[in-house]
């Protein structure tokens, strides 16, 4: 049994344990899942392979989530990226890391700020054509206005963190592995 899970070498697992919040068992389990998602077995999951999961494919933010997983930007997710990203959602995960992940969802160009345009793009993904662009722009403007303290018209990570101070991130951003 378990022929798939044994292809991770013990030292590899140990190294991954250090880099993430997962224990050995969880890493093995995630590796199995990774292999399942990696349909062509080339060692990385492409967007197309992610889209094979219906539950994920219908998620409006799936593209943002995948691009955050893909930290080296090669349009696919290898196992290291896979567990590094998931590690954030571990119950033992660091609150700041969770906050960073949430921030990255909106910070599309990765410049450390959520601009008006970026927030608009993300909200557009979330609502599709069910709100008009004018309505959406109003929401964006209002949100930025409320969060933007230094008045530069965009939201920095600190400002973002402040907005979410009262949010129970440990609870909200935890996924059972």
């Amino acid at each position: 049994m378990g022929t798939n899970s044994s292809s991770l070498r013990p030292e590899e697992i140990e190294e991954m344990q250090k880099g993430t919040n997962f224990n050995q068992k969880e890493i093995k389990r995630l590796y199995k899942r990774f292999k399942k998602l990696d349909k062509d077995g080339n060692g990385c999951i492409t967007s197309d392979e992610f889209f094979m999961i219906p539950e994920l494919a219908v998620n409006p933010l799936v593209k943002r989530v995948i691009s955050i997983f893909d930290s080296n930007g090669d349009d696919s997710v290898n196992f290291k990226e896979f567990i590094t990203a998931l590690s954030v959602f571990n119950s033992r995960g660091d609150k700041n890391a969770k906050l960073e992940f949430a921030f990255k969802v909106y910070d599309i160009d990765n410049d450390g700020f959520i601009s008006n345009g970026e927030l608009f793009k993300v909200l557009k993904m979330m609502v599709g054509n069910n709100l008009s662009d004018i309505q959406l722009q109003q929401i964006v403007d209002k949100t930025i206005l409320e969060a933007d303290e230094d008045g530069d018209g965009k939201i920095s990570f600190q400002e973002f963190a402040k907005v979410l101070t009262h949010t129970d991130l440990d609870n909200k951003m935890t996924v059972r592995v």
Partner: protein
Amino acid sequence: MRASGLLSVTPSTPMSPAAHLNDEQKKSLIKRVQSVDGFRITAPLEKNQTLPFVGIADATSSFFTTDKEQVWTDDLRVEIEDHIISRLRASGQDSFNIFSDLLPVVVEGVDAVVKDSFTESFRPRAPDAWNWNIFLFFTWTLGVIVRYLVLFPMRFLFLLLGTLIFILVNLILLLVPPSKGKDAFFRKLLNVWSSVWLYSLSAVIKYHNAPPPRRPNQIFVSNHTSLIDFIVLTEHCGVATVGQKHPGLVGFLQNKVIAPLRNIWFERFESRDRSLVAKRIKDHINDTTNPPLLIFPEGVCVNNEYCVMFKKGVFEIDDVEICPIAIKYNKTFSDPYWSSKDESFVGHIMRLMKSWCLVADVWFLEPEKKGKKESPIDFASRIQKMISAKAGLVNLSWDGYLKYYAPSDRLRNERQKIVANQLKRRFGHLFVEEEEEQKEKKEEPQSDKKNE
């Protein structure tokens, strides 16, 4: 969803009390408090949706998954809603924060990366390793020897012999001109042959209740795990079926051997034939001399732990009497789930023959008819729930054909609508102002003109 106590709630169409709130408000309420209560929306399917391959698939509306043992009813759903609403009032949280309130969409995505109920539905059970110490290992080895070297050859020879005799008798039957007596004889023969199959699998099948007596317009529907389902029911009550054409050995069995049952076969991707198939089904069930028709409305084999969406197809037929059958296999000795992608039929049967036995419960449930105001989709969903409840399966509203197709954008749009409604509710006052402003702007130039 794993039976981990995680509860998935999809607020769905007709929802009773909490009269002071409309559906939209309720939906957004549930959405908003899901983190508070640990509820979580897993599948975003809310309304009936149709997938690109016309007509084959329509989703059922309501969708509820929870721990296997618990069966949730609509009453319970209402109760949960009320609970959520009162929780929300108590917490008095009126402030809305885009970033935190839309977080669940992200988390749902990540959750689906880790584990999704759809993939789970088609996952074969990994064998439990219990031979972990020296004594057990010895016992286990002994078992392997018995199973592989004693039981398997015996069973295989028995099946081979039975099949040879079956073929021989069939060849002789070819010489006999077609008649009713011949058909009856053939069906009897088929029953015997199915028992040969079941004996060679050491099947221990417990039937609960008797199959309903043959009446016109009657269709048996059952959950689907493997072709074994068909053998099990053929042995017990001689059924015909509608199904997918298979290549290889199974194809040969379908076309030649069991032809007198007047089964209806079609290609999975053949949507053009659908009206023809429907007509043939109707003709078949109206003629009571035909064996009862067995349909697997899931359309795919599922691992017998989940039950995917029942397609509305046969539930649309006028005045049809649906006889639900729930089949639950006991996976202690072997996993009877047939994943036709990973395993050939011969390989599947061989694997089962090498295990100790095949244990299953079969329940014949009360026949049901479609309610006057009930849509075929709701009817299909009701029957699906009945079967899932009886067999202890987790009910899902995912279409099994998503195994072969990527879901359409329309499904995502359903999800987006929910978010949009949520935003509308929160920021609605902005929009109203905007509209008024626009109106004012439009009116202004006119008044200007008048002034001039």
